[in-house]
């Protein structure tokens, strides 16, 4: 019997990752490994996925998210369990920008959890994929990483870091079976944005775009798709126009 596909979710309890996982167990019977910081939350998620597909093999593992040695140890434990076909790095946190400006500790934590932490996870997993010779690595960045804005540049800068990191990895793996996918969601209806004003895409739609895009090995997924055009315009606006915009 062929092995079930092994899918790894880092920051699995994020609403976006959770909805991707639902699609994966709905459309097939993969082996899923869920990694997060809280064992209880991971267990709640795993139980849900098992109800959705009793045949799917669901594992959970508490992981370290900031200490580099801890990230290395977490990834080593994961890769020791055999081949990984697909990995999605999804964790992140969006604090209030004005609080970040006053509190460097918070700014530091924001840069760390949205930038350094996923980049280090990507690096550690890239090593594994390189040895394996195939696999798909997805990183969730954000449209916020496309141009710095006063309303969220601390978070945006960290997401921008992921953009460059993913580009570098894509270059590194250009001639191999490893594919690196950078995902840039627009504002999405999840607990992260519950308190914010604005229009949000349904998380189910975003998850569907991610799952489909990763399947195809798309280099950059904007989701919903309209953000590709919007961000292209925003990136190219001259400063004298951009600076008048309240965004």
């Amino acid at each position, binding site marked *: 019997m062929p092995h079930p596909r092994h899918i790894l979710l880092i920051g699995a309890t994020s*609403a976006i990752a959770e909805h991707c996982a639902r699609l994966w167990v709905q459309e097939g019977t993969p082996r899923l490994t869920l990694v997060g910081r*809280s064992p*209880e*939350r991971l267990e*709640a*998620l795993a*139980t*849900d996925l098992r*109800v*959705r597909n009793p045949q799917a093999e669901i594992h959970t593992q508490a992981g370290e998210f900031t200490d580099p040695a801890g990230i290395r140890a977490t990834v080593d434990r994961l890769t020791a369990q055999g081949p990984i076909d697909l990995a999605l790095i999804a964790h992140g946190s969006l604090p209030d920008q004005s609080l970040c400006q006053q509190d460097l500790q918070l700014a530091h934590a924001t840069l760390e959890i949205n930038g350094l932490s996923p980049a280090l996870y990507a690096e550690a997993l890239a090593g594994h994929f390189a040895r394996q010779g195939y696999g798909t690595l997805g990183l969730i960045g954000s449209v916020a990483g496309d141009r710095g804005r006063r309303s969220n540049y601390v978070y945006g800068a960290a997401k921008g870091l992921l953009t460059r990191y993913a580009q570098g990895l894509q270059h590194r793996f250009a001639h191999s079976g490893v594919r690196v996918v950078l995902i840039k969601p627009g504002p999405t*209806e*999840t*607990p992260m944005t*519950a*308190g*914010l*004003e*604005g229009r949000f895409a349904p998380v189910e739609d975003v998850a569907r775009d991610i799952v489909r895009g990763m399947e195809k090995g798309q280099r950059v997924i904007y989701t919903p798709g309209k953000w590709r055009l919007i961000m292209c315009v925003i990136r190219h606006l001259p400063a004298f126009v951009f600076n008048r915009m309240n965004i």
Partner: protein
Amino acid sequence: MRAVASWGRLSAPPHDCIALHERERLIEHITRHTPGLAFGMGRSYGDVCLNSNATLWMTRALDRFLAFDEQKGVLVCEAGCLLRDIQRLSIPRGWMLPVTPGTQWVTVGGAIANDVHGKNHHRQGSFGDHVKRLRLVRTDGELIECGPDQRPDWYAATVGGLGLTGVIVQAEIQLCRVQGPWLDTETLAYTSLEEFFDLSDASEKDWEHTVAWIDCLDRRGHRGLFMRASPADTQEPSPAPRQPLSMPFTPPVSLVNRLSLRPFNMAYYALKKHRAGRAQAHYEPFLYPLDNLAHWNRMYGPQGFYQYQCVIPMVDAREATRRLLEEIARSGEGSFLAVLKTFGDRRSPGMLSFPRHGATLALDFPARGGRPPRLFERLDAIVRETGGRLYPAKDARMPRELFRAGYPRLDELLTYRDPGIQSDMSRRLLEE
């Protein structure tokens, strides 16, 4: 603060929205941010799910399944689970929700708090009849587990309790057996109310679902289409779900108006009559016909719309329905979505449950000039006179005294009320 509207889109007041997500933080969120109100999918039409300038506890991300016993058909899930997801999970395994409203885009918590009904009330009662147990979190941090045979008073207060007794966080639901996703359906044209009631009476024994559309602008008689359906024996699986179409924006004026309505109704009647007869249908388009057009409520333009839904006790049902329809036809205000159905004689489980033995009529009216149509007062008079009641899930304007008169167990419910919970409706109908 975020602007949140209910389905009728009459207003979009600002709310402090708190996502309920992590189980271990539920009590913290619910005790810390008061006065608050649980908000599911906002598929209620009026102000029952709004709490202007205060907290909404958003339950949408509280949507994990906990257990599904495929032998007994018992599902345990969090309160934010969508009925759509429960159907899609359980039907391929031979089980289905016994009761669902005309849209499956509602949460379990919302379905319990309004004790919703479906087209099969005469067979299955209301949603609460199938809730075996629920878990309630109160704003003082107390946790209450209740069901028909465990603290039944709390269960009776919470089913149909309009969210006022606490936040439902989890529920255990008894599903019913089905062969598959298909229904045997029949559509019959009728031309008088007598005919409608006779069809209803005759269908209740043999058909699981019955519902009728009625042309409320027809002055000559009362023509309409009677639809009935029962589970089919076919086991063929569901086709892959399609993405619904969407009303992409809100037109500057209501597309439903005096000009459009008459041709609309005529065309609808003619089309459906032409295709009347027996057929086999998938449960989704039959039970949730409007779910195929996302955001259809935008059709009514920026001012939004009112729904009027009442139930008239059976003894007066034929006569009072005729008078209601006469008032509507006379006003020239019209409704495209005019739905008529009879409720069975099963006693509803909740103190404030809407369904009771009788006939229920539901109509939509565009809001003009920010006011409900004057017609509503004349309809109220008929409801009042016959001892009927209006449905809070659809209401944004009923007078207090009509609410009291329609719901004799209101005072009993109030003894279970959570003092940390308020809604625009509770302020309108209950607060001093």
